[in-house]
Structure formats: C-alpha cells, structure tokens
C-alpha cells in the first residue's frame, strides 16, 4: 500500500495521470430514460467479441454481455481494482498462486431465459484461451500462462496456471471476455459472429446494419437496481464534425472514445455547463520504429540520433492543444505503479531535459556515423489524429539537427502491409492496449523472434532474457526494477521510441451521470451504471 503511495507521489509534472472524473455526487440515480450515443466508426466486421479487436464492435455489443471479472466500473481509472461481474467474490489464488477458483452467481439467465452456469463460463473462456481449429481468438496470446479452464460443477470455474504472473488478473478482466451460451457454442462455434445473445444489462432490440444498435433494459439483470436506463441507441458516426454537431444539437448525448481539444473547446464555448468533460491518460501511444534492416538504421548511433533530436517535453505540451496527446512516457502506461518516474525517464535518450545538449549529441552521433546529411521518408497513416500531427511535428524536430525527412502518408491497408513486409525505413506506428496490464503490454516491444508483429526487424536476446525474468515475478519492487532494465535496454539499443501517450477527453451532455472515464476506451462500456438526470 505504502509502496503504491510512494510511486504515486514520485510521479511529478508531466506524468500527471489523474483522471478527472466528475465531482463526487451524492445524488441517487434516477431510473428511466433513453440514452443515445455515437460510435466513432463504421460497423465492425463481426459481432463476436472474442474474435475482433476494434472498439466499434465493443461499443456496439458490450451492453448485452456479462464477463467473469472486470475493472471496477466505479473506479475505472485504477489499474489494480478488479471486481466481480459474474463471480461472487474475487478469489485468493491457491496452490502457490497457480489455481484460481471462482464461484459463479446463482440465478443468472441469458436473454432467452436459459440459465447461465459455470459451464457456460468455462466454455467461453476455453474459446478465448484455447480456440479450436478454425476459430479465431484475437487475444489468446495474453493467456499463455493458462493451462486449463474447467467447471467441476454448475457453480465453480477453475483456472489452472502454468506459472504465476502479475499479468493474469488484468488479462482476465478483458472487456471482450463475453460469456456466451455453451449450448449455442456447441451447436456452432461461429454462431456469435452473427448473433447477439448474452446475459448483460440490456437486451437486443434492433440492429440496423451500418446504422444503429438499439437495446432495452434486461428486467432480470442480476445487479440489483441496474440498469437505470430504459434503453439505449448507439449510432455509427465515423465523421467527427457530425459527432460534434450532434452533441451540440442534442441529437446524441456523447461518444465514448475521445475528441480532440479543438472540438472540446468549441463545445464548451457553445454549451457552457450543459457539457461536462472527463479526461484521462490513454493506454495508447505512437511508436517510432526505425527498420533495423534498412541502412543506415542498422547503426545504433543513427537510431539514437533520431531519438535525441526530439523534444518530447515541450512538444507534448504544444501538441496537446491540437492533438489527442499529452503525457510523456516510455513503454509503461504513466498511471501504473510500474511506470518510470520523471527522473528515471530523463535518463533515457529522447527524454533529456536539456534539449540543446540532446541535439548536440544527436549531431555528434550522426557525424560519427557519417550521416550528417541523413535523408529519409517516414511511413505514416493517413489519419489526422494524432498520426499526421505527430508525424508533422517529428519532421520539424529532425530538421533542427539537419535531418531532412519527409512523410509518406498512406491509407491503413498499405500502411500495415508496408510495415509487415519490412518495406519502409522509419515508420510511425500505433500501440493501443485495453486493460492496463504493463507486463503483458510491454510484450509488444520484444524482438520479432518472440513477437512476430514487431516491425523493427531486430533480434536482441538480452531483452528477451530480461522479459522472461520479469514475467513470473510477483514482487512489485523487483518487477519494477526489471522493468527499468527492460526499458533501458530498449533505449540503449535505440530499438523503438514511444512518442507521447495519447490523452482522452470525453465530452458529454451534463445530464449523463454515472459513467467514469478510464485509460482505455474499451473499458466500462456496459452502460449498467449510467443514469440520466433529466
């Protein structure tokens, strides 16, 4: 406890991570009302949460489903507060931390009236952790530590682990961990791709393709009093100007992802206190990835020079006025106890507080490597927020040490394809995770022999060795020390650089109450605790 407080205190300016939820309210939730919100994307591919990774699917389907455990919806900005949804209480692991035994609530029903038992939970989790052939599970790699999931009886689910790790519980709280009906899965493992049937706070009313999803209250919901809303409508609205205008004209109350600062300012100016804004650091960021297989980026000095030229501290401040970025951080989400403090960050290349010194060093390294006239093209995605803005800023920063860089901006498909095929010199990627799970989250920085989708094209056994020691480490202090080593290794070798974490700002009509912002737009989307003060 003390340690956590120390960490929190040690985080100074620039690492401010406090989410700003609405002022504490002693109001009692009012029952009734219909919430209309927008989903800032076009309809997702399928309806199966286990299979998909896009938030469009989550925002459209989460209200219909239950999960086993979840991030506490009343404290969603915490990175350690996990509570039960379908279980009765959070279990203490037995067996030296290798076995978790959950008791499932009694009397839960699916929306078609069928009872939900531990067998459904086990079947759903087996689908996620160990999908049968032909069935895709997007996050099964997060569950490498799980050996088996079983349901010895109707009310008990047992998870047996291969090794103990701090990353298990956050992974288990995956908001995509929908509990499906075993009966349906036995009939057809792909049934949930096209159908919705859950046990969550809302029942499906209508689904209009490409346009909207409507849900109505589930009268048999097992959390007493919830949901407060009679129903909801979720409208797909990919264009930002439409969303801003819709909130302004009250065609919809909010969207749950984030809006850039300009839109927030505009809404505040026009609506005054009819609008409330909640903000939080976001468990997403842009990653600068030089291709180690492309000359001259096979030379660590050149890569490091790239990093040293960037003034992250000042840049993040300026950019936060026009883009959805704010906090400077390294590989761990700034709000987590495992994150680096400001002092620790300032030791790393790219984070030096004295930018002139940093740039002088960059120029010196370039000269040493014979690359004073370095010219290259950076690959970037054609999305404004924040890719293009961050990219444009980076080009500017590099110009200040004499590097002449340009951007090659392409649509999403070719962007991903170029990176996967190694067809680039330097790329600006994105890194988005959902539940804050630092030990699992930093796995994406590992070299490509372990993490196949790391586009940097490098091998580094030392890194892998540090990680393998960190993964089963349960002592927080030791894990933190190992994390610093891991971070330092990445930086010493100048493999990749995190350029500013994103920042969420969610504007909503002030009559929407009960929802609290969190570091991820995937969390807290079941709408069960939302009520309307109208």
């Amino acid at each position, binding site marked *: 406890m003390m340690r956590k407080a120390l960490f929190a205190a040690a985080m100074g300016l620039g690492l401010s991570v406090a989410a700003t939820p609405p002022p504490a309210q002693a109001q009692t939730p009012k029952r009734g009302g219909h919430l209309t919100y*927008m989903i800032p994307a*076009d*309809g997702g*591919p*399928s309806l199966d949460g286990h299979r*998909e*990774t*896009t*938030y469009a699917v989550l925002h459209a389907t989460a209200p219909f489903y239950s999960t086993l455990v979840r991030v506490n919806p009343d404290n969603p900005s915490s990175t350690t507060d996990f509570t039960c949804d379908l279980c009765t209480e959070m279990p203490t692991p037995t067996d030296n931390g290798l076995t978790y035994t959950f008791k499932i609530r009694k009397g839960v029903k699916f929306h078609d009236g069928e009872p939900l038992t531990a067998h459904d939970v086990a079947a759903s989790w087996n689908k996620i952790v160990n999908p049968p052939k*032909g069935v*895709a*599970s*997007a996050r*099964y*790699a997060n569950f490498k530590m799980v050996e088996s999931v079983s349901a010895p009886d109707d009310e008990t689910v047992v998870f047996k682990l291969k090794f103990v790790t701090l990353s298990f519980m956050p992974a288990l709280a995956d908001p995509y961990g929908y509990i499906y009906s075993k009966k349906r899965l036995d009939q057809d493992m792909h049934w949930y*791709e*096209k159908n919705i049937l859950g046990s969550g706070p809302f029942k499906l009313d209508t689904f*209009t*393709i*490409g*346009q*909207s999803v409507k849900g109505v209250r589930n009268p048999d919901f097992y959390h007493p009093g919830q949901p407060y809303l009679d129903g909801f*409508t979720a*409208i*797909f*609205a*990919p*264009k930002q*100007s*439409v969303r801003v*205008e*819709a909130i*302004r*004209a009250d*065609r*919809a109350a909010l969207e749950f992802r984030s809006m850039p600062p300009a839109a927030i300012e505009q809404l505040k100016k*026009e609506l005054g206190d009819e609008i409330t804004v909640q903000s939080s650091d976001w468990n*997403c960021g842009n990653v600068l990835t030089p291709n180690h297989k492309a000359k001259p980026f096979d030379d660590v000095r050149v890569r490091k020079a790239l990093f040293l030229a960037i003034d992250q501290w000042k840049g993040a401040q300026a950019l936060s006025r026009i883009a959805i970025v704010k906090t400077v951080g390294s590989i761990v989400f700034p709000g987590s106890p495992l994150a680096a403090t400001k002092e620790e960050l300032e030791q790393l290349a790219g984070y030096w507080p004295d930018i002139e010194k940093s740039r002088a060093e960059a120029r010196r390294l370039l000269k040493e490597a014979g690359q004073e006239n370095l010219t290259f093209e950076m690959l970037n995605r054609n999305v404004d927020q924040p890719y293009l803005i961050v990219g444009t800023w980076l080009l500017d920063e590099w110009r200040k040490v004499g590097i002449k860089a340009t951007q090659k901006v392409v*649509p*999403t*498909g*070719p*962007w*991903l*394809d*170029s990176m*996967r*095929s190694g067809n680039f010199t330097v790329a600006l*990627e*994105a*890194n*988005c*995770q*959902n539940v804050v799970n630092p030990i699992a989250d930093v*796995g*994406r920085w590992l070299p490509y022999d372990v*993490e*196949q*989708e790391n586009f940097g094209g490098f091998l580094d056994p030392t890194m892998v060795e540090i990680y393998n020691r960190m993964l089963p480490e349960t002592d927080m202090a030791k894990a933190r020390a190992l994390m610093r080593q891991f971070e330092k290794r990445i930086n010493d070798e100048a493999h990749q650089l995190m350029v500013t974490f994103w920042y969420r700002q969610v504007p909503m009509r002030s009559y929407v109450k009960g929802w609290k912002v969190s570091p991820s737009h995937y969390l807290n989307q079941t709408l069960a605790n939302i009520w309307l003060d109208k």
Partner: protein
Amino acid sequence: MYMYVLKRVLLVIPTLVGAAALVFLLMRLIPGDVCVIRLGSSGGTFDPKAVALCHEELGLNRPIIIQFFEFMWGFMTFNFGTSMWSAKPVTTEIWARLPVSLEIAILGTVVANLIAIPLGVISALRQNSWLDLFVRVFAIGGIATPSFWLGIISILIVLDVTSAVFGKAWMPPIDYVPLWEDPIRNLSMVILPALTIGYRYSAITMRMTRSAMLEVLREDYIRTARAKGLVHRLIINRHALKNAMLPVVTLIGIEFAFLMGGLVVTEQVFNLNGVGRLFVQAVQNQDYTLTQALVMLTVAVFVFTNLIVDLLYAWLDPRIRYS
C-alpha cells in the same frame, strides 16, 4: 431500327466484362488486405496465425486465377458472394442501404429539375438580359462548388442560425427512419443533402436546357415558322421544346449515374447510411467482394442509363433512326 437496338444492347456485355476484370485487378494490386486491416488497425498487437486463419476463411490464399474465375462465374450467375469484412451477403449489405441513397438521389433530381428547366428556358428566351446573366453565374456556381464543402457549410449555417434565432441549435437527425414510418423526421434528414446534390445537378441541367433552347431557336425551321406568323407560344411548345429535350434527356440520364458517384462524399458529410458510404468503407477495408459488387452496380447503372438514352434518342430524333 431493330438491328440498331439489338447491336446496341449486345455492346453492353463487353463493357460489363471489362469493368469486372478491371476492378478485380485493381483491388488486388493494392498492398494489404482485409484481414490485416481487420486485425491490425486498432494498433494493438495481432497474431500472424489469426491473419493466416482469416486468409483461409476468405479464400484469399488460393491462386489468383481461381479467385478470378470464381468472381466472374458468380457475377454471371448473379451470385455476388459475401462481404469479406462483415461476412454478410453482399446483397443484404447493399439492400439495407439502397433506400437512403435512392431517396436522396430521386429527391435531389426532382428538386433540381423543377428549378433547372424553367430557369433554363426563361434564360434562353431572355438571352443576355440581367436574368440570363444571373442564371448563368448561379449555374456555374453549382458546378464550381465542391459539394462536400457546401454540405459542411450548410450544416454549420443551419446550426448557427437556429442557435441565434431560437436559442437552441438544430441539426437534422443522424439516424435514418424510412419515409412511411415518420415522414417529417425522414424529410428533415434528407432535405439538406438533397439540396446540396441537387444544386450541382440543377446547374448542369439549367445550362444544358438553356443552350439547347438557344440552338433550336436559331434553327431554320423555327425562323420559318416565325416568318409564317405562327404564334410565339405555340412555336416554343411544339417545335422548340421537343427538340430541345433531346440533349436534356441525354444529360438527365448520364448525370443520374454521376449523381450516384456524388453521393460518395455527400453521405460522409451528413452521416447517411447509404450506398456511397458503404462504397468508401468497402474500399478502405479492401473488402474485395463488396467493392467489386458495388463497382459493377455503378457501372451497370451507367451503362444501362446510356443504353436507354441512346434508344430514346433514336426514337425522338428521326434523323438518327435511319442512319
């Protein structure tokens, strides 16, 4: 005449086949594919095994030739397959969005022509007057203004005006209800996009009507009729108008097909769940089957509209029939 019709109809086939081959080829030349986009665009890590599985599910790992033959065969038997992105049948996806697009296109066309034809005729009759100049500039304005820019500005104007006048900003609804369910809500959503598209369309028709009218008014047989003393109005109605209609009919036909294309950007601006927006999504997701089907739909509309117009031409203008 029959030979002409037959020949004209048969010529449609190679056009459609050519378009099908072209879209097939072009889509596959673009790097990346629907699987990578589906799994990778959220920025999280994704598993190459999942990508491989997806390729297998969608048949993308089969040789190109086989994929091509399957596509051509499906196209010829009117089996358009399933969308690679959503796994729903292509016809379901398109059918769900057709009502919105059609309503806007038709409403836009009606409004546009109601304005355009009378203005074009008057402008021709009063050539070089102030009215004529005004109509001409107004018309060219319609062609020169990017329709999406007009859309953005129009929404903003509506918002600002209602906010200033009524104290509360108003915007059209962002979700669609069919006309028969709630006509007022439906029309309030559709009217702005219809006007935006209609302005451009009316501009073209206005100019065409005017210039066709002018040309005919100068024709020898009109001068003869005037010389004979036929009443002014009678001439306009019977002789001039009928022949002026020929190029106008052509234009309406061709422009209707282009209208569908104009919907692509307009639907984005007004958040309309129409075929244009579906098209943009399909292309961005690199959803081959859906894109191919939509392109074929567009091409077919274009080709058949041209066919009808050509046949109408032959019927309306006797000089062509006997060529």
